[in-house]
């Protein structure tokens, strides 16, 4: 049973299926009811499941997350929508000091099966605070699971897997990919939520990436193949925990690694992946692990975001630099 749909529709369908499957699942967020969310991810869900299960929230992100934690303690499985990446910070304390460690501080007696959906990333011509990539802050926090789908197929299944998880999940949705279509097999999940996926096989170098950059990296790899280079692309999918085995196997095979993300460089996921790679496979590496990222400045005006974000040419340039060793 395969359908072609956008990532936005796939998320909507995944949420609908989760709401149908478990009466304890409920959604909360700003404008998610009648409007269906500013990106329409929750369209018609309030109409079909009622105001008690698809809850329009006051404009207070800490309040949304904090009350959802209370609902989780009562046995609910809240799925929270943060309207934009740049608006998650008011909820940061609740996420980091409360949600992430409730299992730990209760000695395992309590759990917080909550999903925090965050549309993230740039390249949509938005104004300030609407194009952020906050994943490293959350991946740095023990107790949180951090994932990001890159395709409609993954979006459809990973949102359901996240809702079924007994750990809190930061669910990062690459908003620039919301309206791109893909095939979605509705019959069974193709992969566990914490598994990385080799999306393109290759032998010369590995590009490790996730979320909005997966498509860009695949395009770069295909372009490189025109120059006779065989590039492997790994979609990390789960940023915390990382699928160490898949990452390691790929780089031990190719001997070269390039990590690509939209987020700024310093202290980013790329730094963590690079550190792990040099610990695991120092003697398999033919070249230093390279990073292609945004630059270490706040997100700039959208007219220059194309120069700020990694793109096909910058990725190919990194491939060239890696291969030069």
């Amino acid at each position, binding site marked *: 049973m395969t359908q072609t749909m956008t990532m936005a529709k796939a998320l909507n369908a995944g949420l609908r299926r989760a709401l149908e499957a478990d009466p304890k699942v409920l959604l909360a967020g700003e404008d998610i009811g009648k409007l269906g969310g500013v990106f329409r991810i929750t369209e018609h869900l309030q109409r079909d499941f009622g105001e008690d299960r698809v809850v329009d929230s006051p404009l207070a992100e800490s309040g949304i997350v904090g009350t959802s934690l*209370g*609902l989780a303690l009562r046995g609910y499985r809240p799925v929270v929508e943060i309207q934009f990446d740049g608006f998650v910070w008011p909820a940061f304390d609740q996420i980091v000091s409360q949600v992430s460690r409730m299992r730990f501080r*209760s000695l395992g007696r309590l759990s917080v099966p909550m999903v925090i959906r965050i549309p993230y990333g740039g390249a949509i011509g938005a104004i300030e605070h609407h194009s952020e990539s906050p994943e490293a802050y959350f991946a740095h926090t023990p107790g949180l699971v951090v994932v990001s789908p890159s395709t409609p197929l993954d979006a459809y299944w990973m949102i359901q897997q996240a809702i079924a998880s007994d750990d809190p999940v930061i669910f990062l949705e690459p908003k620039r990919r919301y309206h791109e279509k893909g095939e979605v097999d509705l019959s069974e999940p193709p992969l566990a939520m914490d598994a990385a996926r080799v999306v393109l096989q290759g032998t010369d170098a590995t590009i490790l990436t996730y979320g909005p950059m997966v498509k860009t990296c695949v395009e770069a790899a295909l372009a490189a193949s025109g120059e006779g280079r065989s590039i492997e692309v790994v979609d990390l999918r789960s940023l915390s925990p990382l699928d160490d085995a898949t990452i390691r196997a790929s780089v031990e095979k190719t001997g070269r690694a390039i990590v690509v993300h939209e987020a700024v460089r310093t202290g980013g996921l790329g730094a963590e992946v690079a550190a792990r790679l040099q610990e695991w496979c120092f003697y398999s590496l033919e070249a230093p692990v390279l990073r292609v990222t945004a630059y270490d400045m706040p997100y700039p005006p959208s007219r220059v975001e194309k120069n700020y974000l990694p793109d096909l040419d910058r990725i190919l340039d990194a491939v060239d630099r890696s291969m030069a060793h």
Partner: protein
Amino acid sequence: MTTTENPDASETVVTPGGTTIVRSEEFIQLLTPEGERVEGESFSYAHDDATIAAALRHMILGRRFDTEATALQRKGQLGLWPPSLGQEAAQVGSGAAVRDLDEVFPSYREHSLALMRGVDPLDMLKTFRGTSMVDWDSRATRFHLYSFVIGTQALHATGYAMGLQRDGLVGNDDPDANGAVLVYFGDGATSQGDVNEALVFAASYQAPVVFFVQNNQWAISEPIELQSRIPLYRRAVGFGIPSLRVDGNDVLAVQAVTEWALDRARRGEGPTFIEAFTYRMGAHTTSDDPTKYRRREEEAVWRTKDPIERVRTHLLATGAIDQAWLDQVDAEADALGVRIREGVGQLPEPRLEDFWALTYAKLPPALAEQRDAYLAYEASFEEA
């Protein structure tokens, strides 16, 4: 119930006796510091002397627990202790209003209430000795975990109350089928965004939650005037939440007001805000030195308003208790003290091994590797 005709509707509420009260009733008191029963304009105490005696016992035991814990910290047995001295009536009076389907969300100073809820004092001391995280069963006791980030629990409580609404435990004809949530925080916490957001959410959804602020006048070294230029309880009115100020050192008034507020919540009439006007007789925590920021004269004034002494005076005067009764409670408190003093040194020392599995539902491979490396590293010393 609130009326909705005028914009000040939230200021007007009807008590069980049918009296309309408005927020302008500044201070509800039913037992004076001298131990005299007084009738309030809107509230009266509905229970017999045996109930008051039970509250007195809880206050005496709570104070002993707190005093012992403070002493244990001074002896180096605890890393830290936040004393609750002087706040026993606020805690015991409100705690006495809790019924079977209600839930309590404390801050971190509700020690008297913890005992009432059946938390083992030694379990509580584990947190402050550093031998464990928060080691009591919040489901069994319906006394949730202490929360050390100020005000965060106000949102958890409100969300939990939203859950009670969805579970059909609010507004049923059978009062025994209804529950509500009682959440505690201090005067300092009222400046926190989370507390204010909790008031917004609770009002918007008419959640069955009672906000109970123990205004003990001091947030560490900062006086209440730094948090609010108006009486705290008046703030909640601006959120559309009925609000009252009660003598927090009067266990009768606190119980009466909290019973009424919880009843409203259980009936589906929405949140209430209670300001219990009390005083932190001790330090904020044992790391603090109140002589640096407040005057001893102020403490002396509040000492005359002691929450326990007035009940003792009153019950002795009515003959509801006698010296033998008091001696018996003191003996019980002595036994509690012995148990705490002997038990604290026996609390098992934690090992890091106990904690690896508590971060996620299932141990991620990378964390398992860190654990194994740690164990191997530790074992390398044993072999040597």
